[in-house]
């Protein structure tokens, strides 16, 4: 059958009332990001259809598939740009953007699905492109620059056509992105009997990210006679690894998968205290042990650390789990695709927990460079505004199209994130405590003989080396194959199907294919039965010709690995067919003790399970704490605090992110009882997400987070304490059940291993030590077990001495029970006459505060040093939180807001904005320090509440001896007044505050 390429183009009609919104968005974003008006922009969507059908047969059905008869015009095999009805004058410039070969083209796949309904051809393929038409581009705009804002050359092609090109007919058109044919290479044998330098070279050249000790451990394995004998019996090279084995070990032993720094033996020296100790695994010492200790006191910790997410018993019928991940390196290279695979990836962690949990809520926390950055930018980095737009769009599409509400998050800005943005994606999952057959759903129970299916997407050359790549620093040569675009609809279909399979009791074991691909997923599951046998020849591929090692380690998205008992395989496959999900048996569990990989009949890898999982040698690292010297922040003596408040509200770290957050669906599933924005105009800040996931039942789940990276500039320990306290504070603000909450620690660090590339590695490791010690101290005091966590340890850009390292950053995510969502609180002031209390004490803690950075950036002061906020008495703090949470659960308090960046002044201003009400506040006597400090200090443990007069006495009684301060009253004046005794510090119109807070990060360029 002959194959034809047919071009179809679609553009919006120009009749009355019709608009080209796609084009107009391009115009508005260029105004918002660069202050450049490019004039009218029009858009054309293109489809290149490769099938057995000719243009003549497709033409009559164009309106049935490609163009909407009411709003669009469609044309076959002609370029609309030359159609004078739509473009009476030749435009200034056309930029056509299409995908590079092999890049996921979701619109193309969907179009093909639609095409097949009318034109069955299983070999058909459709590739899409978009043409942006600039009808009258100002001559001051550079064409190449403009094109660079419209595509990412790593994954997309752009073809420019100028007015001259179009007039003279020399404009080139975009063609089908053909993939070069590749031929499968047979596995090669890697000789490891070489000099040490050669071992290092093998690791570096192969992007294996293994150090010399690890390469030597592998070398030693192949020298052992018993292994050689076993290998001979299956017909694989006896004394040297195949490339498949080496790649498999590199993935499994990667920092990304094995957390080698957290597991390392650390020699720690503290020059302040003269401490000189050895720490054997930060993870075991400071994270795992405390949680296991706490597990002795409670009965609701069902599964911690060992599965894809941590699971707690929520009530008798349901358990809840949560996981957060980072996707920093991919998001730096392709913000859109990197972030999207981040969110859909962590969704799969939830789906792969126990026997399968259903994702019910997402959280997104991003750290970026300032969006208004005008300074230097290395040529390989994107401008922070571009990173923000791309990451946001990726997470938005990933979350929204999966039908999972985004209920909580944050965006943090600092110049150092220009080198490496941080993209944290979290997901909460829900599963029944028991399945219909009586099995507890948080436990996996495979047996030898179970069939292992690969379910969902196919394997391609995309996503090869993601795990090892993220374990290296970012450079100009970072590979584009590590970047992928997610396909949320394929994943959604898979998720629907797997949850039905779970409820039909067809699953014995499940895990996701993330970092390391099948090598990790099947490898990890094989630990349960102590062995497996895979046939790579059975794995469905996106394109032929992939080598065995590529199939094994490819991280192609949207795949789960599911084990099914032989008696259930027929039912499982029928379900897959119904849902149009590909499910292919690729392996079988054994108890052979070996990870046995075949390609057809040939054995291409044969590794003992024990060596694969426990063979990696422990790192030994050096750590030395010398406190950083920061010039002390001294507030200027004369300063207009009212102006300062308006400036502070417009700081990107404080300003409203509403434009961005509203683009996430935060209400799908009909469960969100406290939304990201609250109050009279639904634009005041929400402190924590609160959901009631069982329809009709008011029992809730609180989801909150805390992050305070700049405190690391003084002490990374303080940074961690502040992050945990913020997460708890936020949860308390909505009335969390303080006795049933769990946490997730997600560390993002600059490389803390001392080397030529990282001469300050000892200091960065000491920061990590201090961070972990505070994590343990605060979590133990708060009775807050960490049930899952993750670390990303190479967040640097460039090469010493021009290296940009991120500030050490830990995101703390919290999920907890809520007794009844009908009794909760929101941040907005509710009505005139409410009495305002500050819970907690203010201290003189302006070190690394937002106001210190602000006045530094304005060159009004020098230095951000001084007292960083600390938490010296966490047990006492927990008691305060418990009492306050109870008063909210009892319905006495319906207004509460967390005090964080910008201190009390900002917190109260935000409460006025949310309620569109004024307040009169007196900060006399609320704590130590001068009035500047009491306004702006970021002391931990503080929450502002407003209580109706009739509940005031009960409130005071229930708080008992806890530190509460009456600071003022809500007024209907629309004016916020803050006084210190007789001195008026601030008098501001709420409308002005609202404007400052809402406009700074709007970035819409109009409507």
């Amino acid at each position, binding site marked *: 059958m002959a194959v034809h390429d047919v071009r179809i183009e679609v553009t919006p009609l120009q009749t009355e009332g019709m608009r080209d919104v796609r084009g107009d968005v391009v115009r508005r974003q260029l105004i918002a990001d660069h202050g450049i008006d490019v004039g009218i922009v029009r858009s054309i969507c293109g489809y290149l259809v490769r099938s057995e059908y000719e243009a003549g047969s497709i033409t009559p059905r164009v309106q*049935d*598939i490609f163009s909407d*008869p*009411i709003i*669009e015009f469609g044309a076959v095999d002609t370029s609309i740009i030359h159609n004078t009805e739509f473009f009476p004058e030749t435009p200034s410039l056309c930029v056509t953007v299409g995908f590079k070969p092999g890049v996921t083209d979701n619109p193309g796949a969907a179009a093909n*699905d639609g095409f097949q309904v009318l034109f069955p051809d299983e070999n058909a393929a459709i590739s899409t492109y978009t043409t942006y038409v600039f009808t009258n581009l100002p001559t001051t705009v550079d064409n190449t620059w403009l094109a660079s804002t419209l595509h990412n050359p790593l994954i997309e092609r752009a073809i420019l056509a100028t007015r001259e090109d179009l007039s003279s007919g020399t404009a080139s058109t975009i063609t089908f992105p053909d993939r070069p044919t590749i031929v499968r290479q047979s596995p090669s044998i890697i000789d490891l009997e070489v000099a040490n330098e050669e071992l290092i070279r093998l690791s570096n050249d192969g992007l294996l990210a293994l150090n010399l000790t690890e390469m030597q451990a592998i070398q030693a394995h192949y020298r052992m006679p018993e292994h050689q004998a076993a290998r001979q019996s299956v017909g694989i090279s006896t004394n040297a690894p195949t490339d498949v084995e080496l790649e498999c070990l590199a993935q499994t032993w990667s920092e990304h998968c094995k957390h080698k720094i957290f597991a390392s033996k650390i020699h720690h020296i503290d020059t302040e205290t003269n401490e000189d100790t050895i720490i054997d695994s930060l993870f075991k010492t400071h994270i795992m042990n405390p949680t296991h200790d706490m597990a002795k006191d409670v009965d609701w910790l069902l599964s911690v650390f060992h599965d894809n997410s941590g699971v707690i018993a929520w009530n008798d019928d349901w358990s809840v789990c949560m996981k957060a991940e980072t996707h920093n390196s991919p998001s730096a290279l392709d913000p859109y695709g990197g972030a999207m695979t981040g969110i859909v990836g962590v969704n799969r962690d939830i789906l792969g927990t126990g026997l399968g949990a259903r994702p019910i809520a997402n959280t997104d926390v991003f750290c970026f460079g300032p969006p208004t950055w005008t300074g230097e930018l290395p040529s390989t980095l994107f401008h922070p505004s571009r990173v923000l737009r791309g990451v946001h769009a990726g997470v938005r599409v990933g979350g929204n199209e999966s039908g999972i509400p985004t209920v909580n998050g944050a965006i943090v800005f600092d110049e150092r994130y220009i080198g490496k943005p941080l993209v944290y994606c979290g997901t909460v999952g829900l599963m029944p405590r028991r399945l219909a057959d009586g099995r507890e759903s948080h436990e996996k129970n495979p047996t030898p003989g179970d069939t292992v299916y690969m379910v969902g997407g196919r394997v391609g050359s995309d996503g090869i080396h993601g795990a090892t790549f993220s374990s290296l620093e970012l450079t100009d040569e970072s590979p584009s194959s590590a970047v992928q675009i997610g396909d949320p*609809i394929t994943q959604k279909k898979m998720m629907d199907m797997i949850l039905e399979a779970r409820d039909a009791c067809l699953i014995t074991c499940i895990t996701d294919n993330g970092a390391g691909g099948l090598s990790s997923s099947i490898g990890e599951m094989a630990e349960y039965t102590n062995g497996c046998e895979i046939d790579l020849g059975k794995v469905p591929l996106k394109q032929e010709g992939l080598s065995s090692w590529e199939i094994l380690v490819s991280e192609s998205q949207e795949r789960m690995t599911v084990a099914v008992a032989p008696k259930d395989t027929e039912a499982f496959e029928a379900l897959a067919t119904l849902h149009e999900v590909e499910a292919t048996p690729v392996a079988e569990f054994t108890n052979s003790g070996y990870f046995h990989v075949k390609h057809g009949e040939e054995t291409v890898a044969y590794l003992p399970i024990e060596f694969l999982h426990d063979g990696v040698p422990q790192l030994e690292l050096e750590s030395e704490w010398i406190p950083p010297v920061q010039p002390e922040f001294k507030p200027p003596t004369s300063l207009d605090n009212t102006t300062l408040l308006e400036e502070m509200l417009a700081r990107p770290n404080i300003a409203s992110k509403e434009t961005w957050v509203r683009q996430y669906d935060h209400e*799908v599933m009909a469960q969100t*009882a406290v939304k990201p924005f609250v109050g009279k105009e639904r634009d005041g800040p929400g402190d924590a997400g609160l959901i009631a996931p069982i329809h009709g039942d008011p029992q809730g789940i609180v989801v909150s987070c805390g992050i305070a990276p700049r405190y690391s500039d003084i002490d990374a320990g303080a940074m961690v304490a502040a992050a945990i306290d913020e997460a708890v504070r936020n949860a308390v603000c909505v009335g969390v059940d303080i006795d049933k909450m769990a946490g997730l620690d997600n560390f993002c660090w600059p490389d803390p291993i001392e080397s030529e590339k990282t001469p300050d590695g000892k200091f960065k490791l000491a920061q990590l030590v201090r961070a972990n010690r505070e994590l343990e101290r605060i979590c133990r005091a708060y009775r807050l077990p960490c049930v899952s966590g993750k670390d990303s340890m190479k967040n640097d850009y460039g090469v010493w001495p021009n290296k940009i390292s991120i500030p050490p950053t830990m995101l703390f995510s919290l999920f907890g029970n809520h007794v009844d969502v009908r009794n909760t609180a929101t941040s907005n002031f509710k009505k005139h006459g409410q009495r305002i209390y500050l819970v907690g004490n203010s201290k003189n803690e302006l070190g690394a505060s937002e106001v210190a950075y602000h006045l530094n950036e304005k060159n009004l002061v020098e230095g951000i040093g001084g007292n960083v906020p600390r938490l010296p008495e966490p047990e006492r703090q927990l008691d305060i939180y418990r009492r306050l949470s109870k008063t909210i659960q009892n319905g006495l308090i319906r207004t509460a807001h967390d005090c964080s960046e910008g201190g009390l002044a900002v917190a109260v201003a935000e409460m006025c904005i949310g309620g569109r009400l004024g307040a009169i506040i007196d900060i006399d006597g609320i704590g130590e320090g001068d009035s500047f400090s009491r306004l702006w200090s970021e002391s931990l443990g503080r929450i502002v509440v407003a209580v109706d007069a009739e509940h005031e006495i009960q409130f005071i009684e229930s708080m008992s001896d806890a530190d509460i301060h009456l600071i003022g009253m809500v007024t209907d004046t629309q004016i916020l007044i803050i006084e210190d005794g007789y001195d008026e510090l601030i008098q501001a119109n709420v409308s002005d505050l609202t404007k400052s807070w809402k406009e700074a990060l709007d970035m819409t360029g109009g*409507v």
Partner: protein
Amino acid sequence: MSDNVRVAVLFGFGINCDRETAAVFDMVGGTSERLHVNNLVQGNRSLEEFDILAVPGGFSFGDHLGSGRLLGNRLRFALRDQLQTFVNSGKPIIGICNGFQALVKTGLLPGPESASLEPDLIQRASLTLNNTGRYEDRWVTLEFDSESPCIWTKGIQRIECPVRHGEGRFVMPTDADLDRLSTNHQLTVRYVDPSTESGSGLSDDLLPFPLSPNGSMRNIAGICDPTGLVFGLMPHPEAFYTMWLHPEHTSMNLEDDQWEGSGLQIFRNAVEYVRSQR
């Protein structure tokens, strides 16, 4: 015949509001079943088994090639006869958000020119990108045409509920098309300014963003077919089944018996309509 009112709630291919849509029908006395579209396409199941059909919100096929289009095609080409029979036998259909988009693109909405004509599955309107160019989740105020034949909206004057869409701008080719729907009272529900008095908020003049979240012609949020049985709307009434989903419930001091959300009545109307026809 049993008293059961059986509701088919479609899912699959990226539909994602199926669980809550099924739940609200159960709350008002219906008996819902989440039914994969392919169960109907492959003939394992038939629409005949059901009294009500709901096409929930979501992102069927990722909204590629226009929201609801590819799902609409599956319905239009694979289920044409079943759908026509369903409507002809007087059974109600609702499409919410992506489901509304799919019903418009199948041509079930706004449907033929009069109630006496059979559904012809010809597309006469569309839902296109919001004027803002952005997908947004925000609460809106809706008001209903009290003279609409729509069986889903009887007795409802004004409610709030969320919209969550990027392609919700309702358009028709000409003013005359809209006039015809208006005359037939098929412009069942529209976005209104909440500061107007309930019952007098409906207006043909375009409301500014965000009162109208998408720039729909005549502020249209939802329409029905000439029979009033088929109803579609962009906003999500199922997402306001209880007051604890309202953005300001912490300001309301509600009594225990005041927690029903005003979105629920739409579903109750349909279940009661089916019972009343027996």
